């Protein structure tokens, strides 16, 4: 909890500052835009966070989204399948790819970094190849239901955000309250000891990559309909970095065994608010990266310094206490 608190405070402070400087921040339209972004980015970030908790990494999400996106467009517009079929095929394919990653990692003992790096390269290449480097879109045709998922609102709340909340709630339950979640943490912390305790660590790890695949597919569908087009060469570029950054900011450790769903959500929200504020405050576009970098650094730094100072104060307090007792 402590870990998420610092970043949460940073998020709140940032929101307050921005809304003071530019009250437009609080316009419902802006909040909706923001929530939509948080939803779309949050869903796959949760999957990435789970993978990071196992001590692994998943670099291929961005490329996978590009591949899924162009295939989605092709199944819908070129082969004329229905929306339901296309969505299920997308999610199914992504889970299959995740399963592939998981099996390569657990059965062949390959490093997650290498496996998913190859995924990053391979899926991107495949996406470009099947489309012959042509951007694929959904045109103006109405895939009502799919568009609704990406661009619609439910009682004024953007659908991606609703989806994120539902998924986060389920993941929270699974991660922090279920047997699977406990096994996941155990595997990430010390897979050897987990194995001695009878946990099928290979299955747990594989399953996690599959889940991550499914969540990537859901995010991918949202992004595809959000932009309404998928450029095979650019779509989803560097999104793995956003996901990893959100998870790490939210307290996941890349050494595995640490992290929480709430943290990942806060991390995602922070990144998106930063992107939003650059535009709202009229900061020169050239500086937006710099602002993001600086805010994150200062925030995490302040958090660290406060934590350390608090610890030091506690130690001093104890020393005093025991000195007094000694008298």
């Amino acid at each position, binding site marked *: 909890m402590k870990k998420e608190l610092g970043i949460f405070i940073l998020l709140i402070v940032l929101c307050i500052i921005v809304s003071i400087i530019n009250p437009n921040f609080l316009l419902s339209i802006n909040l909706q835009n923001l929530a939509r972004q948080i939803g779309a980015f949050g869903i796959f970030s949760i999957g990435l966070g789970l993978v990071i908790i196992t001590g692994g990494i998943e670099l291929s999400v961005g490329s996978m989204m590009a591949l899924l996106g162009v295939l989605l467009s092709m199944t819908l517009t070129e082969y004329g399948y229905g929306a339901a079929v296309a969505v299920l095929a997308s999610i199914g394919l992504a889970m299959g790819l995740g399963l592939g990653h998981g099996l390569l990692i657990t059965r062949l003992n390959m490093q997650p970094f290498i496996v998913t790096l190859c995924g990053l390269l391979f899926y991107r290449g495949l996406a470009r190849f099947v489309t012959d480097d042509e951007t694929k879109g959904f045109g103006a045709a109405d895939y009502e239901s799919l568009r609704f998922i990406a661009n619609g609102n439910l009682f004024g709340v953007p659908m991606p955000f609703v989806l994120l909340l539902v998924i986060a709630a389920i993941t929270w339950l699974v991660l922090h309250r*279920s*047997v699977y979640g406990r096994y996941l943490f*155990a595997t990430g912390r*010390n897979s050897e000891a987990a194995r001695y*305790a009878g946990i099928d660590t290979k299955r747990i790890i594989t399953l996690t990559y599959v889940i991550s695949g499914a969540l990537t597919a859901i995010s991918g569908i949202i992004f595809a309909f959000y932009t309404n087009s998928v450029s095979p060469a650019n779509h989803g570029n560097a999104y793995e970095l956003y996901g990893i950054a959100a998870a790490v900011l939210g307290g996941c450790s890349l050494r595995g065994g640490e992290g929480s769903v709430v943290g990942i959500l806060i991390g995602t929200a922070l990144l998106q608010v930063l992107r939003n504020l650059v535009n709202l405050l009229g900061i020169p576009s050239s500086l937006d990266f710099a602002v993001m970098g600086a805010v994150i650094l200062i925030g995490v730094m302040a958090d660290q310094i406060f934590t350390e100072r608090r610890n030091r104060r*506690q130690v001093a307090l104890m020393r005093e206490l*025991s000195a007094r007792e000694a008298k």
Partner: protein
Amino acid sequence: MAGVSKRFPGVVALDNVSLSVGAGEIVALIGENGAGKSTLMKILGGAIARDNGTIKINSEPVEIRSPREASALGIEFIHQELSVLDNLDVAANIFLHREPTTAGFLKLINRKRIYSEADVLIHKLGLDISSRTPLDQLSLAQQQLVEIARALGAGARIIIMDEPTSSLMLSETRRLLEIIKDLKRQNVSIIYISHRMHEVEEIADRAVVLRDGKNAGTLQRSEITHERMVRMMVGRDLKEFFKGAAHERSSTTNGNGFIVRRLRTIRYPNHTITFDVAPGEVLGIAGLVGAGRSEVARAIFGVEEALETEVSLDGETLRITEPQDAISNGIYLVPEDRRLSGLIVDFNVRENISLPNLESYSSAKIISRAKESKAAAEAVKAINIKTPTPEMRAANLSGGNQQKVVLAKWLTFRPRVLIFDEPTRGIDVGAKAEIYELIRNLAAKGVSVIVISSEMEEVLGISDRIAVMHEGRLTGILNRAQFSEEAVMRLATGTEG
């Protein structure tokens, strides 16, 4: 050291503790698990900071803020938890941070010197390997010896040894004790922590006893006896060990019980191991360091591949390729290396205890916190794990109490076969007695128990029969009538069988 105090959140680990060591003196520091021995030594070794108190060397007050400063003052620390580096070789570990270098900007290591000097050191300790061996190829005991070699090589004035013999077998222990006596002659001071009372009896000039983080008294050389130490440590008389131990039980399984046939491990493929354990029987497995006992246990449990084996339990043939196969058949292993395989040090006590049995505390895969906490609390009480709360991170527990957590994991089960690999390593005398009792109770309920142990006393006391191994070979199985230290040693050293 005088008036040293240390608090951890929720625990007063040390309260106004004093300790002094003269030049060339061997001081034993003893006490129950969690008494604060390691904490006191970590303060002296600069690994943690004290809250109060002073440290003086040659009546000069000193501040020791880091292991480096301790080292500079001539204090070397052999930690209870191994702190060797398994990505380096033996010589690199021994000379870490003391490497002889050739002059020059790059500080190149003088490799010739490092290897030859390391070879000398490890041979002195009776370690029969090359100093170029990567550390990850050594057994736990051998790694322990490397760490001792490291401290010896440092040429320290004060050497702290925190349970150095806990994973050593008799002959290595003997050699180490000789070396300690030798060091004493060279005017080196030794602070020696051990739960093995006879070692203390043999070498200590003085024994300082800690109880619950406080000084509980000091025994001079002439006063050091087993009973007095124990009484001072636990504050009461202890009932006799191994009381009512093994009465002769039927050692014929009649096809029942746990039968292992033709087990061949990858490391010793030329030897097959065959033994059986009747329900209610305790089979001890003795042997020297590296005899391959742990390997056998791991192969049975399915963590390691066996080249060939036939395992049956109560007449039913089992196929075990993964630990979960073993567990689902009621076969459990308490591993020897607690930090690596025994527990997850970043999990708290509750989570560690419930881990293998999580399904039974959950409905529809959702864990019932109440059931889990209750089971953990019961286990903590049952074997007296010293922790303020089951929510304490296992890493913060003392070494012995960590070991108890490892044991506690399996107590919540209904085992049919239970394999203990060095179950009492680092456990204090009081708790040892409790664990022995526990093992006997398990046996009485019809469980087949296997106890791998390097402590002669323990194997002889607890077992109904003893299987002895030498370099991967099963050299013999002794019946209770044949039990004697000599008989075990003869088989263990391969001079017979």
